[in-house]
């Protein structure tokens, strides 16, 4: 503040970079960084030179050449004449499908098992322990292959559904067919569909958005908004008068009436699978490869999640549940209102790494012939084009981005949970 108290300005000498502790760590870091960059550049240069002498310079042109192969499970339209980039996109969507399905079921199973493992019922707790130890301690690849082998060897063959004396038949009023090629379930159809919005022309990344779906989401959102308003009003009335108006029938009405009206307007009906020719036609086909992968990844990851949940619950002091009991809460409400919300703070960070693991483990899909990203870009495309380095670099990049996105979302959620608590 005052120039008087300033110490005399010391002139800067080069040796201070090493001997002055204020600069030393900085110097070391800069030197290490330069060294690291040099090594990296050398490796990169070496690889490029070697690939050039081999006559295979790094090039991503193959991405815009026709893929040439077919993919069984595709969420967007795709044919063998589409380019490799689109095949990779189809694979990426398939990866995301198992990852999302897997994370959801793993969480549900994991939470249930984790809670039950603490159950005072000896048998239930023991069974859950066996489950956790069994799944945690065997590599997930084996579970995937086992699930697949069981599905394809033990479920009825298509031919047993055929002919006069068929030995198998469809379940649930002839709407679901369980076969060793997968499970066929009814699919939602709209006879007065509003059509699709087509985006990105005929590029490799083109896709359609169903207007029906948008309409459903919008109506649902509006209904939920309406329901909140009703709740808020009921709260206000309760505050003012002490009496809470009965609102459940209004709430149900707001939720269902517009939705049903919309569905009727769109001509909603279910398309049932039926046996035609070689296979079941119609309906949605959940292939064995998807089910096996989904099941194995969920059960495996759920075992880890169960442990995390158990740890999280045990971290909440006993006084909390005693206090809740003293207030007259029943045990299940104590769990859902007092224990679990607090346990979430402990649970969420390790949960992130389990979601990441599940997503990365989904690349084992190749073992059961599920066309995920590793199966398309890192499998058939890599093989047919011989572009190993390019494909692997792209694969790593995509998995990295997915993982970072999951981390980002979960970290955001984690922050929210923390704030609510404090």
């Amino acid at each position, binding site marked *: 503040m005052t120039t008087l108290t300033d110490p005399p300005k010391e002139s800067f000498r080069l040796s201070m970079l090493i001997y002055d502790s204020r600069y030393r760590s900085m110097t070391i870091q800069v030197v290490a960084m330069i060294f690291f960059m040099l*090594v*990296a550049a050398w*490796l*990169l240069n*070496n*690889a490029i030179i*070697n*690939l050039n*002498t*081999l*006559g*295979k310079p790094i090039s991503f042109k193959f991405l815009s050449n026709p893929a*040439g*192969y*077919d*993919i*069984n499970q595709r969420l967007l339209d795709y*044919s*063998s*004449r589409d380019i490799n980039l689109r095949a990779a996109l189809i694979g990426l969507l398939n990866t995301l499908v198992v990852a999302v399905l897997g994370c959801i079921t793993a969480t549900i199973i994991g939470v249930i098992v984790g809670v039950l493992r603490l159950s005072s019922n000896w048998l239930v707790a023991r069974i859950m322990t066996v489950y956790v130890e069994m799944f945690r301690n065997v590599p997930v690849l084996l579970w995937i292959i086992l699930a697949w082998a069981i599905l*394809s*060897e033990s479920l009825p*063959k*298509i*031919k047993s559904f055929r002919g006069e004396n068929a030995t198998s038949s469809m379940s649930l009023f002839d709407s679901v067919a369980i076969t*060793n*090629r997968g499970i066929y379930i009814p699919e939602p159809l709209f006879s007065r569909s509003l059509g699709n919005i087509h985006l990105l022309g005929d590029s490799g990344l083109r896709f359609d958005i169903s207007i029906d779906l948008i309409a459903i989401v919008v109506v649902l959102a509006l209904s939920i908004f309406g329901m909140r308003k009703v709740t808020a009003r009921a709260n206000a009335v309760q505050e003012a008068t002490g009496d809470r108006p009965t609102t459940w029938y209004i709430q149900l009405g707001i939720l269902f009436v517009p939705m049903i009206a919309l569905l009727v307007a769109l001509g909603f009906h279910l398309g049932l699978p039926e046996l*035609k*020719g*070689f*296979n079941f*036609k119609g309906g949605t086909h959940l292939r*064995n490869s998807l089910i096996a992968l989904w099941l194995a990844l969920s059960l495996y990851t759920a075992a880890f999640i169960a442990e995390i949940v158990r740890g999280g619950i045990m971290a909440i002091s006993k006084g909390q549940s005693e206090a809740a009991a003293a207030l007259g809460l029943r045990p299940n409400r104590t769990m859902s209102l007092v224990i679990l919300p607090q346990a979430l703070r402990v649970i969420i960070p390790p949960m992130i790494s389990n979601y990441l693991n599940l997503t990365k483990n989904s690349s084992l899909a190749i073992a059961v*012939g599920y*066309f995920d990203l590793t*199966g398309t870009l890192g*499998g*058939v495309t890599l*093989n*047919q*084009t*011989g572009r*190993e*380095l390019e494909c*692997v*670099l792209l694969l*790593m990049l995509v998995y*990295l981005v997915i993982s970072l996105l999951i981390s980002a979302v979960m970290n955001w959620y984690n922050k929210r949970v923390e704030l609510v608590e404090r």
Partner: protein
Amino acid sequence: MKKSVIFGALTVAGLAAGAAAAGTLDDVKARGKLNCGVTTGLVGFAAPDANGKWDGFDVGVCRAVAAAVLGDPAAVEFVPTTGKTRFTALASGEIDMLARNTTWTFSRDVDLKFTFVGVNYYDGQGFMVPSELGVSSAKDLDGATVCIQTGTTTELNLADFFRANNISYEPVPIETNAEGQQQYLAGACDVYTTDASGLAATRATFEDPGAHVLLPEIISKEPLGPLVRHGDDNWGDVIRWTLNALITAEELGVSSANVGEMSSGTNNPEVNRLLGTEGNLGEMLGLSADWAKAAIMAGGNYGELFEKNIGENTPIGLARGLNAQWTDGGLIYSPPFR
């Protein structure tokens, strides 16, 4: 973390590229063993027998090369490869040559940089279905579930064939022939498709081969032959001329039974050149004078290898067809030994 992984991959690429340099013949001689890539198991072409000894038509080529180069048909390390791993194994130098039902195509030659030294089996892609399905033509397969090996020409041909005929199918990708067979027999797919020779070989191992038919359509050309990496022509020549020696031997009537007698001299100069009693062909290749004799003694000439492993008297029962000598109306033809 991300960075270290990428650099790891780059280092591997750098090393792999380094390993692919020339001098394979010297390497093999120094090692005293030939690393030969084969299938993971396709009876008749390459499969270990009950004693774990590899046997088959493609294995015969490996053994002939080992005999020609090292004088010992047993000096082979067989490396099982799948449709997907075979090219990486060859490009990285893990194997010296590949003899595995591999189709010679433009892109494998020009883009993947492999030298196909010849053709030891002219094949085409076929379809196998259970007879109870009552299918008589591949064009009736609309909507069928088809098992295919990934990383093969098969999956590309299949897509083209169904597209050209405007019919649909459901692909079930598999890694190895054994897996394909298991899936097909379990009824997880209606159709198994691969090279017709592979279908015949696979069907021969079924409990009831009569319950499965091969459809009449052959939808592609699949010239199968041994291959090596680009960039070592000398080594390529060794494999090429070993295969040609087996073919020429059949054409000239030299067999494993009479090669001993013939190598003491005949009045056919080409036989003499082949067997090294005249000229110095072996020396030109960098091999001993009796290299071709050793190759023929290893498992017999081309015709003998064919009859013993996949011919009409074996369970696989393939006719010579396109694979007859050119003198018998087939395509098997070797350039002259001179």
